[in-house]
């Protein structure tokens, strides 16, 4: 028996309610409803994080009152609570930003508000799910809502990017679903809590195939190198608020699920191949950074930077141990990159909004006209490079610490190289911004950015840097109910 205002249930119900409400209001309306709804969700997420952090144990909600394995359970442990907190800390500024961004021409974002409601409901449901089949449904909500947000603008580039993204996400969830079918065939249940003690290293080969299919499908959805091909057009081509939501949150959802499965039911199966995701992650860091360094368009630069930063998340797999250091590093990187990348896309969007052009070369002169946006971009860059006192610094520090403890020197080299490469692509933009634009180009800087756009980007960037100062609290939360 739980109270009526159980945050677990309402974090899923509330966005569904305001998404439906926004749909009833009409194609371009619902902004205020959405912002009030997300503010309430942020409050629920904080409430949940405090409860989980103070209680020191995971909180459970048995949907339907049946309990697993007959019914479906929702579980909030430290990692889930941290993800929910991140989601709403990113979503609230971004929705305010979106309101300013779409104010000029609402017709380019028809049904943006209800779609973002469904996306948030899907994310929250995914973070709380403890049932493999229920996770499949939440994965589909997140994937289809994300594709919808990319395509909703309706021009040919966006539709093509949406379709490419759609096929990637559908192959990924198809592989995941086949894995679930094999697991049900082998064990007669899809509840993670029931499965975890049943799976061991002598499992039938169908179970090994299932684990491989599910993890590969999720890696495709997380855009891990070499499955990253769909991400740059989708994240680089969508409107800025959508790019920010996608890069900060959506790719993290499938990573979260990989981590859940890796540490939970599939732990006995994955011990010997932990170097593989780390190898792909290293390749992602180098390749993504290189592509970001030579990108022509500003948003493509930021999108390729996402591929590189996602690589760091996969470095933790060979380091996961009983000390929980690597898991904390991964959680910290997820949160720090989520805030920083949302800030970076928001700042880039504001700059493109003002200059009317999207090439890196066109940001020339932005420094004097939009100092706040540029400062936000630079602060977000500080987190991506991993400079102190940012959250990114803390994440990389923990990661290097874990790698040194276990003697994995090559990972240390990759982490440091990745930071240097990030510095190159961030400074490439900053340098350009301080240049004086050519005479004929000045007219593009005629109007100023709406303050709402600049300051929401700045808030997100500042949060990603200040996160390093409050990192201890986050690390304490991440330690609740986690580990093997």
């Amino acid at each position, binding site marked *: 028996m*739980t109270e009526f205002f159980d945050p677990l249930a309402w974090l899923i*119900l509330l966005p569904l309610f305001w998404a439906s409400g926004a749909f009833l209001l009409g194609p371009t309306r619902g902004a205020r409803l959405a912002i009030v709804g997300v503010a309430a969700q942020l409050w629920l997420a904080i409430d949940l994080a405090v409860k989980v952090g103070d209680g020191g144990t995971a909180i459970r909600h048995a949907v*339907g009152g049946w309990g697993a394995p007959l019914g479906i359970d929702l579980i909030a442990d430290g990692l889930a609570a941290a993800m929910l907190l991140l989601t709403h800390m990113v979503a609230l500024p971004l929705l305010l930003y979106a309101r300013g961004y779409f104010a000029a021409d609402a017709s380019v974002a028809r049904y943006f508000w209800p779609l973002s409601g469904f996306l948030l409901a899907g994310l929250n449901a995914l973070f709380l799910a403890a049932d493999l089949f229920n996770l499949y449904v939440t994965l589909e909500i997140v994937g289809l809502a994300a594709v919808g947000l990319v395509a909703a603008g309706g021009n040919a580039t966006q539709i093509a990017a949406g379709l490419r993204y759609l096929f990637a996400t559908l192959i990924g969830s198809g592989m995941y679903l086949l894995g679930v079918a094999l697991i049900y065939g082998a064990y007669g249940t899809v509840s993670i809590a029931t499965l975890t003690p049943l799976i061991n290293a002598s499992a039938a080969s169908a179970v090994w195939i299932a684990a491989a299919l599910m993890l590969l499908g999720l890696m495709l959805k997380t855009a891990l190198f070499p499955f990253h091909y769909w991400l740059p057009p989708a994240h680089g081509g969508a409107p800025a608020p959508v790019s920010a939501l996608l890069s900060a949150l959506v790719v993290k959802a499938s990573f979260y699920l990989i981590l859940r499965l890796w540490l939970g039911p599939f732990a006995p199966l994955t011990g010997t191949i932990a170097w593989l995701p780390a190898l792909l992650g290293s390749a992602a860091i180098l390749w993504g950074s290189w592509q970001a360094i030579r990108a022509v368009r500003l948003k493509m630069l930021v999108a390729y930077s996402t591929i590189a930063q996602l690589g760091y998340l996969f470095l933790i797999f060979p380091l996961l141990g009983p000390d929980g250091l690597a898991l904390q590093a991964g959680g910290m990187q997820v949160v720090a990159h989520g805030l920083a990348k949302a800030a970076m896309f928001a700042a880039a969007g504001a700059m493109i909004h003002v200059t009317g052009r999207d090439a890196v070369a066109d940001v020339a002169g932005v420094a004097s006209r939009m100092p706040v946006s540029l400062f936000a971009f630079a602060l977000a860059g500080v987190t991506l490079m991993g400079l102190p006192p940012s959250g990114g610094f803390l994440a990389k520090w923990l990661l290097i610490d874990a790698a040194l403890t276990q003697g994995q020197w090559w990972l240390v080299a990759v982490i440091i190289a990745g930071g240097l490469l990030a510095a190159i692509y961030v400074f490439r933009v900053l340098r350009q911004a301080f240049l004086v634009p050519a005479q004929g180009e000045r007219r593009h800087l005629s109007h100023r950015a709406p303050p709402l756009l600049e300051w929401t980007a700045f808030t997100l960037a500042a949060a990603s840097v200040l996160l390093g100062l409050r990192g201890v609290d986050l690390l304490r939360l991440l330690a609740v109910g986690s580990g093997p």
Partner: protein
Amino acid sequence: MKRAAIIIFAALFAFVLIVAMLELSALPSPKVNLPAAVAANMAASGVEHPVTAVLLNFRGYDTLLEIAVLLLVLLVVLAVSPREGKAPAASHEPVLQVLARVAVPVMLLAAVYLLWAGAHRPGGAFQAGAVLGAAAVLLHLAGLLPGWNAPRLFMRAGLAGGFLVFLVVASALLANGALLHFPPEFAGALILLIEAGLTVSLGLILAGLFLFLA
């Protein structure tokens, strides 16, 4: 080259998967026995058909999210569909029109039957909604129903209504201890209410996926 590699890999994968499933079938049945658990709790589920009991009671939360998926896809279809200038109804074949005029009332009857039958035999809201959607598509193809324009408030309420009824029931049951925690004595009536709402909305959504684009 790439083509041959993918085909060979796919064939190999199918072969390995079949061998693995044969190996699995030789093992004893799993210890977790959900069919038995379903059978033991049927009396408290409010319906008599086990699949309906799983769909709307034991795993009703999955179904709630599944309807959200349909609704959100409809939103994307509305967002990318052309805004005005709907093509007039397609065909004017007299034979097809007569057939449609005869078939549609029967399809409506079949939908109501499927909805009612769901409680104790195969059937239910989705099947009934699919028949309703098919009836609308048939009318359109026969030239009796034009494509739909961007929905007004009344239509939007119809499209989202079933989902909202489901959502309100699910959250009201939090007062009973948990999301979608049906009290056994009211479970049957509440499930019928949800299914009736869903039938109408699913019919409109499935028809809309076709007719908003027509």
